[in-house]
Structure formats: structure tokens, C-alpha cells
């Protein structure tokens, strides 16, 4: 475990010493600040639209950080040849994959904490209320969703040679799930066999990331999700994270490093 956290620590250090995170964070903050300062038609409820747009920005920024940070981890180690001294230590490839995963996932968590604290402060300044538990549930489910995305990108970084192709494929895959994932089941009903079975297989095999999108909890102050369902969503995320990580370990185990 110590080894895994040592690796995760280096990944975290890399994130906060590189400029990418700060650039995205500043851009998101600036856009949110501009949005928060506008007062269209003197409508008090306009704040909900602003919150929706700001949260969408936070979702996009967090996805960009999660995918780009993870996609370059192992390819950069290969390119700079730092993978060689690392694997020459008493370290298994599984530990390396887990270290990279936790590093990227914790980095995403830190990013989310920054984003949500800023967003909360901004919303509070306009609405004079801060439903903390709603924020907690929305941010926690967001983080677990990013865990699945990080695991997918890590697997992709071992399958595809270039980080850019991996990032693009991961973006398309994640965006497709978030936008059309929930409709595949309905589309399957209208299809003849064997297309129907194929569509159903895809529907049940893909991780339904849209389940974790509970921004409405914050935007419309919806009542809290029952903790039982919150727990089930966390278990669902952990199951997919484990599946993608096992696949990544199996792919990496067979790869010659030279």
C-alpha cells in the first residue's frame, strides 16, 4: 500500500506543478464570475440558469483534467524511460497501475474540491443559502463518476499508443455515454434481432455515467437522494472501476517494456 501511495503522491505532485490545472481553473472561475455578476431582467430565478451553466463548465473542466492527466501517465513514463528504473524496483505492474489510478483520482478529487468550494461561495453570495449535504452528494457522485473515467483512460493508455488518440477516444466514449447512453435501451426496443440483442448488450455493458449527474440537487435545491441509493451508486462506480483496472492490469502484464 505504501508503494501505491508513493506513486500516487508523485502523480499528484505532477498535477499541481504543471500549468494545465491552473489554466482550466482560472478560465472556469473567470467565466463563472462573469456569469454570477450579470443580472438579466432583474429576475431573481435567473441564478438557476447561471448555476446550471457554471456547473456544466465545472463538469467539462473536470472531465478534461481527468482524461488528459490520466491518458499521459504511462505513455510519458515510457517516453521518458522512467518506467524502466521504476519497474526495476520490487514493484509489480499491478501496483504501478493502482498507484497511477489513485494519483489521478485523488487529483480529480482535489480539483473538484476547489471547483465546488468556489462554486458554493459564488452561489451563496447570490442566494444566501448553502445546502451542504446537497453539495456533498453532488460532488461525491461526480468524483466517483470521474473514478470510472480515470480507470477507462488508464486502460486506454495501455491499449492505444499515443496519448492524444487515447484522450480523443475517451472523450468521445464518455460524451456518448453521457448524452445517448440512457436512450440505447429504448432504441433497442425498436430494432429487429440480432441488432436488438447487440444494442441491449451495449446498454447493459457500458457504465451509465449519467446516473452520477445529480447537478439538479444544487441547481433546483432538490431533496437529497436517499442514502441507500447513494450507496448503491457508489458500489456501481466501484464495480466498474475494478473491472477497468483489472483489464488494465491484464493488458499491462502482457506488455514487454523495452
Amino acid at each position, binding site marked *: 500500500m505504501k508503494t501505491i501511495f*508513493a506513486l500516487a503522491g*508523485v502523480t499528484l*505532485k*505532477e498535477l499541481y506543478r*504543471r500549468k494545465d490545472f491552473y489554466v482550466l481553473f482560472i478560465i472556469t472561475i473567470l467565466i463563472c464570475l462573469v456569469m454570477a455578476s450579470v443580472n438579466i431582467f432583474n429576475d431573481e430565478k435567473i441564478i438557476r440558469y447561471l448555476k446550471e451553466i457554471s456547473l456544466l463548465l465545472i463538469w467539462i473542466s473536470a472531465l478534461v483534467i481527468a482524461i488528459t492527466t490520466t491518458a499521459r501517465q504511462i505513455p510519458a513514463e515510457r517516453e521518458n524511460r522512467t518506467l524502466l528504473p521504476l519497474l526495476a524496483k*520490487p514493484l509489480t505492474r499491478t501496483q504501478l497501475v493502482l498507484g497511477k489510478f489513485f494519483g489521478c483520482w485523488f487529483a480529480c478529487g482535489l480539483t473538484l474540491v476547489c471547483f465546488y468550494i468556489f462554486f458554493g461561495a459564488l452561489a451563496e453570495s447570490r442566494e444566501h443559502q448553502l445546502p451542504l449535504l446537497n453539495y456533498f452528494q453532488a460532488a461525491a457522485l461526480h468524483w466517483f463518476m470521474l473514478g470510472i473515467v480515470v480507470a477507462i483512460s488508464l486502460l486506454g493508455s495501455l491499449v492505444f499508443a499515443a496519448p492524444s488518440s487515447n484522450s480523443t477516444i475517451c472523450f468521445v466514449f464518455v460524451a456518448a455515454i453521457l448524452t445517448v447512453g440512457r436512450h440505447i435501451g429504448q432504441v433497442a426496443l425498436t430494432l429487429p434481432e440480432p441488432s436488438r440483442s447487440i444494442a441491449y448488450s451495449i446498454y447493459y455493458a457500458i457504465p451509465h455515467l449519467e446516473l452520477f449527474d445529480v447537478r439538479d440537487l444544487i441547481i433546483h435545491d432538490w431533496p437529497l437522494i436517499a442514502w441507500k441509493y447513494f450507496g448503491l451508486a457508489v458500489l456501481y462506480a466501484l464495480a466498474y472501476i475494478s473491472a477497468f483496472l483489472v483489464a488494465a492490469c491484464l493488458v499491462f502484464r502482457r506488455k514487454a517494456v*523495452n
Partner: protein
Amino acid sequence: MSIILKTEKLRVEFTSSEFRQSTKVALSGLDLEVNVGEVFGFLGPNGAGKTTAINVLLGFVPPTRGAAYLFGIDVRQPIARQRIGYLPEMTYYYKFLTAEELLRFYAKIFGLSRTETDQRIDQLLKLVELEPARKRPIKSYSKGMQQRIGLAQALINNPDLLILDEPTSGLDPLGRMKVREIIQRLKNEGKTVFFSSHELGEVETICDRVAIINQGELKAVGTVAGITGQRASLEKAFLDIIGYQLQPAS
């Protein structure tokens, strides 16, 4: 003398993943034995299979046939790497870390205690003469300094066996001399050093025994004096062994 590194009939084949698959034999029946406390030079022209052999020893590449052992343990077991240090050729260490942070990171992987790590870092930075630059990010280091920090990371666990892949490649004469001095010092401390090199002069100076491979096959193994024999230098012997004919100047 006890054997610290051993390969048995090691064969490595690489299959091209392109449409017309072709197989390249990188190593063919390599038998090597390195004894405790010796400095062993591993020589061969470019593409001879030196780095492939090292990659097998470190578990990076699985052998197609044969086996390799470190301390009598199969190299596929991670525990076999507990008491070794490895310096790869031309590595660019984490640019965003300082020398101290880099060594601390590798020490954590070996599970060294905090006190032990602090002592070891101080000793190593002194040994590789990077003490004044310990807080500087590695991205600001020259090539020679990067090679020396590489040597320091290879020594963080106070290894009994050091595997160096062309440790002086790309260094200026001063850098080479410093690396050579460090190897000499390790030899005096009783460490076993296994290194590949093209610098036959330095091999002649510091090695107890050498092995010469060409096209994946072991051509000669023995002491420097034994291999040189009646020839003028190790370089001449090397060229003879790999079958290179010097052309007379026209």
C-alpha cells in the same frame, strides 16, 4: 565464489506486429554467470542484444526460452529486484521533482524508513556530487547531472548488485571520469557491478571479467587479460571476436 547473476540458455525472439509478421532473434542461448564482488563488462556492437539481455534480467521482457536468475531467484519474481540497482541508458527523470524528492520517492518504493532515507539521500548526493543542487528541479540539470542522479537512484537501496546500461554514453570526458570513479568506489566496497558499454578503454580499466556478444550469441567470456591474449588491446580483441576486418587505408 557464489553466483549473483545467472542466465541459462536464454533465447529472446521478437515478432513484428505488422502485416507480414517476421521474427527477429535478439538473444540465442545466452549462458552467463557473474560472481559476487566482481565488475563485469558486457560488450557488443550496437544491436548485439546487450540491452535485451538486461531487459530480461530486470523482468521487462519475458524470455522465449531459457531462464534468468538474480540471487538465485527467477527474475520474473519482483522480490528478485529487492537487492539490485539499475541505471538505464538515457533516462529523463521526473522533471517536476527535485533530486531530493526523486530519491525520497524511490526510497519509499523500497520501504526504507524516514531516518534511513534521510541518511541515504545525504550520502548519495555527496557521492554523486549533487549536494549543492539537491533542491533544484531536475529539469534544470545538465545531461551529466541527470546521469549522476540516475546513478544515485540506482544506489538508494544500497544494492548488492548494480546493473548499468551504458552508464557513460553521451557524457563528456569529465562526466565519464566521475561515473568511472563511482563504479571504482563501489567495487572497493565489494559491490557487484554488471554493466554494458562501448567504451573499451574504461572496461579495460575497471572490469574483472568481460563477456562479448554479437548478433545475440555469446562469443567470449573471461578476464580482460584472458580475452586480450596476445593482441595489442581489448579493442583489437573485440574486433577480432566479432569478426570485423580492418581495411587497410588506401
